[in-house]
């Protein structure tokens, strides 16, 4: 069942969504939420949607176009959902809204609208009024007038109801967004220090870290800008502590110089880019996957990097830990490409699943030498055995060296004979990512016999799952987790035998398709792209796939 609540920012639509989610969680229901943003703090149109108990093939229900119940505050909100409700009887709203069936209208106050709407959808979802009431009371610390909630319930019960649904057997369920998962994974992976600067949609990461880190002896700092954030992270990492930074568009630009510096001094550094609509300040509250080229190529060259991307919310728990490991193992920057949808999407997940994903990745620190160890005849940047050099951190006796962004020799000295240093040290540094051994560079979906192979990352994951579930004989999928270096062998194997490869991405220029074009056999692939800031619903995605064969941007060649 798909439900929606739509009103104005400031009316508490998000609050209603949060209360609803909590009751759904406590009942062990399977769901995914979606919320709409606006740069307008008070007065912009805003929606909350929940996709409950639908099975679209992935970790949680994917977004669907068809809505069962939509509760709208005014005419503009009604416009949004009129075409999406399966039947007009699914439309509920304030008495002033034309087009809402008479039986579904009520005289509403702007302040109580959210609770009324909560009553309507909770009833339709078969949630018990007691549960919802208790959750609301808890949320508002008892200080709330619940009358609209009850009226909403009554209104919905009056019409055809779907009847109470049994709570599932596994009520130990968590609600998790991509941002949550990232933070949990990071802390589990040993992160105890975090420096961040607010930016949509990465602010939550700073906020979670500020709330949680002190509980485990850690510290979060809100710093003055993204340049400070990345350089503080470099400092902390140099000093042996695990950390990462997260930002979005404008912030990732500002981190460019730090990226090359970390790579040059061979300090582990994990950078998360919660991509949003570009370019420039762009569409801060809208999703996009358009920073890939920057992540791959930004920074005056030439230095190594690894680029990862999670395939879903639960995967974030693992990817951030894997990123921390790869950064330590390769002593280089590891970039994690997230997107707004994946970062903010909330899903219900059995705690068991969270726990398993958290535990699956053991922390690997590679050749990091921590105090109280000591070393002798130490040369920080020497790697005689063809592997990586050993990295000491302050406090290790005999381990002193200087980490310089100037080109340097094996001891770190900045005025070496470049002609002897470059072919050895510089090449080693560049080539160390040629041998990245990443456990699961990609996740195949569906049957290897299906003729059309859909390739995507991040928020495309749930859609590819849904397409494969809808047409298992036609579609299979590849969810890429390692974007750079391109896992050519795995990709070739995964697309083997496909009649057609379709790269699906949220951007205008086909950045992923261009990256993969030289790897995909027959030198090309079709693309499905969207760049108006909206997510595909499953229905729209399937339609776009169908159209792709004929009309879309044609083949991308390497």
């Amino acid at each position, binding site marked *: 069942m798909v439900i929606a609540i739509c009103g104005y920012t400031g009316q508490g639509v998000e609050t209603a969504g949060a209360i609803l989610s909590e009751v759904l969680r406590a009942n062990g229901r399977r769901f995914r939420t979606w919320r709409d943003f606006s740069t307008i703090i008070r007065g912009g149109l805003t929606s909350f949607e929940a996709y409950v108990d639908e099975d679209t093939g992935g970790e949680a229900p994917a977004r669907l176009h068809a809505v069962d119940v939509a509760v709208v505050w005014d005419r503009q909100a009604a416009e949004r959902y009129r075409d999406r409700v399966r039947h007009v009887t699914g439309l509920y709203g304030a008495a002033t809204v034309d087009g809402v069936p008479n039986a579904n209208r009520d005289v509403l106050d702007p302040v109580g609208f959210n609770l009324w709407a909560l009553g309507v959808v909770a009833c339709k979802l078969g949630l018990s009024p007691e549960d919802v009431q208790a959750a609301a009371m808890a949320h508002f610390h008892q200080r709330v007038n619940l009358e609209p909630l009850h009226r909403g319930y009554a209104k919905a019960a009056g019409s055809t109801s779907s009847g109470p649904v049994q709570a599932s057997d596994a009520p130990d369920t968590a609600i*998790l967004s991509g941002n949550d998962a990232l933070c949990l994974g990071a802390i589990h992976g040993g992160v105890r220090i975090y420096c961040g600067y607010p930016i949509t949609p990465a602010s939550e990461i700073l906020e979670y870290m500020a709330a949680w880190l002190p509980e485990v002896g850690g510290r979060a700092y809100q710093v003055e800008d993204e340049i400070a954030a990345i350089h503080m992270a470099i400092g*902390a990492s140099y000093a042996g502590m695990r950390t990462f930074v997260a930002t979005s568009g404008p912030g990732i630009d500002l981190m460019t110089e730090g990226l090359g510096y970390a790579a040059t001094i061979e300090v582990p550094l994990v950078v998360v880019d919660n991509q949003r609509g570009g370019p420039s300040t762009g569409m801060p509250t809208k999703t996009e996957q358009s920073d890939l080229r920057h992540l791959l190529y930004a920074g005056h060259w030439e230095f190594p990097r690894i680029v990862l991307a999670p395939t879903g919310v639960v995967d974030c728990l693992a990817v951030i830990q894997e990123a921390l490991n790869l950064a330590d193992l390769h002593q280089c920057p590891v970039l994690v490409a997230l997107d707004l949808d994946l970062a903010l999407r909330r899903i219900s997940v059995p705690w068991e699943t969270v726990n398993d994903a958290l535990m699956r990745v053991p922390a690997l620190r590679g050749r990091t030498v921590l105090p109280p160890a000591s070393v002798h005849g130490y040369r920080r940047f020497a790697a005689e055995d063809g592997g990586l050099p050993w990295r000491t951190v302050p406090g290790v*006796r005999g381990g*002193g060296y200087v980490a310089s962004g100037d080109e340097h020799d094996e001891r770190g000295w*900045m005025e070496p004979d470049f002609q002897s240093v470059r072919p050895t040290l510089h090449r080693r540094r560049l080539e160390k990512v040629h041998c990245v051994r990443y456990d699961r560079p990609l996740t195949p979906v569906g049957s290897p016999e299906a003729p059309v192979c859909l390739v995507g990352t991040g928020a495309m994951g749930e859609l590819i799952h849904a397409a494969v579930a809808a047409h298992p004989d036609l579609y299979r999928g590849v969810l890429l987790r390692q974007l750079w270096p391109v896992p050519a062998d795995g990709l070739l194997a995964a697309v083997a035998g496909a009649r057609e490869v379709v790269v699906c991405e949220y951007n205008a220029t086909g950045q992923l398709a261009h990256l993969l074009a030289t790897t995909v056999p027959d030198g090309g692939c079709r693309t499905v792209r969207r760049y108006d800031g909206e997510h595909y619903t499953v229905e729209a995605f399937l339609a776009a796939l169908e159209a792709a064969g004929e009309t879309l941007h044609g083949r991308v060649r390497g």
Partner: protein
Amino acid sequence: MTLDLKAYENGNRPTWCPGCGDYAVLKVIQRALLELGIAPEDVVLVSGIGCSGKISHYFGGYGVHTTHGRVLPVAQGIAAARPDIAVIAAGGDGDGYGIGVGHLVHAVRRNLPLTYVVMDNGVYGNTKGQTSPTSPTGYRSSTSPHGNADEPVHPLRLAWSAGATFIGQGFSGDIRHLVELLKQAVSHPGFALVNVFSPCVVFNKTHDYAFYRRSVFYQETPARSSAELIQLLETHPFPLGVLWRTDRPAAARLETGPADAVPSDCMRRWLRGTLG
């Protein structure tokens, strides 16, 4: 093992110009640490980009030679992560008061325990003598051939205005004084700014050793009020010594080592608490 000065050197011969003020600053840092009994490997010397920034390359402990202007963020990252390690940040006037001045303001506000030594020579030495933020108005260089039009940065009153808890000033021409100053700075439990007049003998022909010998004023005790500090700075443009000191609490730092695991139950509670 008893420590001696050698332990604070790493065998690299400094490539500063003969007579450069930065030699003295290097020596002072080494001596101050020795006299404080802090082992070189329990220190990170973080430096910026510039002639001054080379200083980390001559230090026997840990060094970080950062990007231009970012010495304070890197130093703060280390200070926050490692309460067991002494952090000394060092760089030039261009690095710290020009491109990096925003970080200075915020580092002062944050008050993480570290010492910031600025080798103030009034020029961009490393890029060949251009006008810097501390070049006086009217100063002529390749980038201000008609005379510098800007008001110079006044580092001490700037730091005061941002809420500094320790402000000191020294001179490369008086090593003994500078060693004492630096020892106090390193012992300060918050952020300590130490501005050092460190002449560039090649490019800055006006602010040379002789100029400073003539101009400095030894201030024996820190100012006791803002008014006194401002008055001092207006009366004596080149005062030396610990000039300002307050005891605003330093920022909190990490409590644990890197290896502690977090019980997943704890996380479960968070998930419930924050998101439930």
